[in-house]
């Protein structure tokens, strides 16, 4: 199979999966009891006539299949409904917030990947030594600690040293873009550190076990027999191959990263999609919840496709199969 066809096939599959998830979303909201109109306008003064009128206005009296097609069309064209609390288009709100989340999540993922991979290499190379056990212990600790709690602890420990909420200091006139950037960095550093530490633990454990697997391979023994130095052995033969599974895992992990982002953004009031979901949860703003969920899922799907394609580039065996 050539690469172009593989890429095309992956994109089509991802699109089909997205359609299925959209359908699932449609079904969930229609099987859960409760009248959406009553939930949206929590007003006891509404007469049955008012409710009926609103139901017709929102198309809830149309046959289910018609509703389904309208819903699919709207969702695919970015029409995700109106927020109960903001009374504004969900798509506009979510897409505004998405950039902020990507800054936080992107920075943390990259940092965690770098730190995790290098730590994992050390742990695998010195397997079963004291260094290995302490590194493994540290990563297991960060794996077991709730993200939001780590955030609360650092809020407490670093109170007063760095700003603890938001992205920018409110009400400040910046002297230039550089000034604004530094303010952003000061707000970013703690939330990003928390998210990094939580992801770090998983990457260390994955890289460690992946590299241990590779080090059992025959070509490593051959390399040793050839008289390669340990450094060359690791850098040229072991690590590149051990990195392969990390590509896939990084993409699959994206769901986890999003979960971590919800918690970190909530604790640090970082105005991203995660905080939006928390606000939607507290206010029971279902359109916001649903819209954020769909956007986040779409991002995860895209990341998965990108990872698959990267993998195919890196590992020529995929193309054959």
């Amino acid at each position, binding site marked *: 199979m050539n690469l172009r066809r593989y890429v095309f096939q992956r994109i089509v599959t991802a699109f089909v*999966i997205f359609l299925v998830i959209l359908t699932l979303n449609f079904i*969930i909201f229609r099987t*859960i009891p409760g009248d959406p109109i009553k939930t949206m306008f929590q007003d006891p003064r509404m007469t049955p006539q008012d409710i009926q009128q609103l139901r017709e206005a929102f198309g809830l009296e149309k046959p289910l299949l018609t509703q389904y097609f309208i819903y699919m069309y709207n969702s695919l064209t970015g029409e995700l409904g109106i927020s109960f609390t903001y009374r504004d288009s969900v798509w506009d709100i979510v897409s505004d917030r998405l950039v902020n989340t990507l800054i936080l999540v992107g920075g943390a993922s990259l940092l965690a990947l770098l730190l995790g991979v290098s730590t994992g290499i050390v742990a695998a190379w010195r397997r079963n030594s004291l260094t290995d056990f302490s590194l493994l212990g540290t990563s297991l600790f960060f794996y077991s600690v709730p993200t*939001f709690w780590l955030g*609360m*602890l650092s809020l407490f420990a670093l109170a007063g040293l760095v700003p603890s909420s938001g992205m920018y200091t409110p009400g400040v006139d910046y002297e230039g873009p550089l000034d604004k950037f530094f303010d952003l960095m000061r707000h970013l550093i703690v939330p990003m550190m928390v998210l990094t530490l939580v992801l770090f633990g998983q990457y260390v454990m994955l890289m460690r076990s992946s590299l241990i697997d590779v080090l059992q391979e025959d070509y490593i023994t051959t390399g040793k027999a050839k008289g390669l130095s340990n450094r060359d052995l690791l850098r040229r033969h072991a690590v590149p191959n051990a990195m392969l599974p990390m590509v896939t895992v990084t993409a699959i992990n994206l769901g986890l990263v999003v*979960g971590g982002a*919800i918690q970190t953004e909530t604790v640090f009031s970082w105005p991203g999609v995660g905080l939006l979901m928390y606000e939607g*949860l507290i206010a029971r703003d279902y359109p916001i919840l649903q819209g954020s969920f769909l956007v986040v899922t779409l991002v995860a799907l895209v990341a998965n496709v990108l990872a698959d394609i990267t993998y195919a580039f890196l590992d020529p065996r995929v193309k054959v199969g």
Partner: protein
Amino acid sequence: MTKKKADVGIGRSRRLGIITDRALWARRADSLRRLAKRSNKNLGLVAHSRMGVVGLLILGAFLFIALAAPLVLDFNPRDFNIGDMFLPPSSEHWLGTDDVGRDVFAELMYGSRVSLLVGIAASGISVLIGGLIGVLAGFYSGAVGEGLMRFTDIFLVIPQLPFMLLIAALAGPSLFNIIVVIGVLSWPGTARIVRAQVLTVRERTFIERARAIGAGDRHIISKHILPNVIPLMFANTILIIAVAILTESTMAFLGLGDPLVISWGSMLHYAFVSLAMSNGAWWYFVPPGVCIAVVVLGFTFLGYAMDEILNPKLRKR
């Protein structure tokens, strides 16, 4: 062999091709002895693995606390005492009081019940679903298996926490709903692991032999496939309990906990919204997090130790 003799041994009856009642029982006893020996060896391995022992000790301690809590303490979550809010630790309140004047230590002991209950029940549901789908997908590798795996892939790609939050918010926060939501949405990993194992077991010769003497699918699955998959599922269950406990506390922290029960996650939720951090009330928000981390670590340790014991491929390294 016409008269039943007391000293008919296994060897002799087997040689004669006759299985008497007594011989049958002797054989059963023999296999039981062998099984006991094998599990003894396994227990030995658990003891050898320090991780496993530490995990077991941690979990034993928390299980004891969870069971003993109602016997030792007289605690009512709705006993508010606003005058006593945020009292620091003292001989009367070992871990101080919370934002409505309740004893934090008592809350902590009660919270262990929720965490363990949710963790165990949710992972039970998840392993049942994941195991069923995994076994079916592995055994029927045609269109049925393919379809089931595509279904699993879809669930694998959906970001889990947002999906759980969405459904829990719609269904309403109650302990039962939280257990079901976590259980019903965390099975895809199990399904994949189980399927992979079934695929290798299915190709072994004893399956072919069973089929040759006319065994049906149901018989092969229950008598030959399941016994080979269950140990793996067991280790997986323990690891999933750890994840389920973390998920429960996260959902409770985000305000989706059952308002009628106290859990470690809901304690942290109230600590967060009552600004315990800026009030300096460390005794309110530090202990619940430590408990969550320690219990999750305990299950993770035990799970990895089990994995190492039940998965000979790992032991070799």
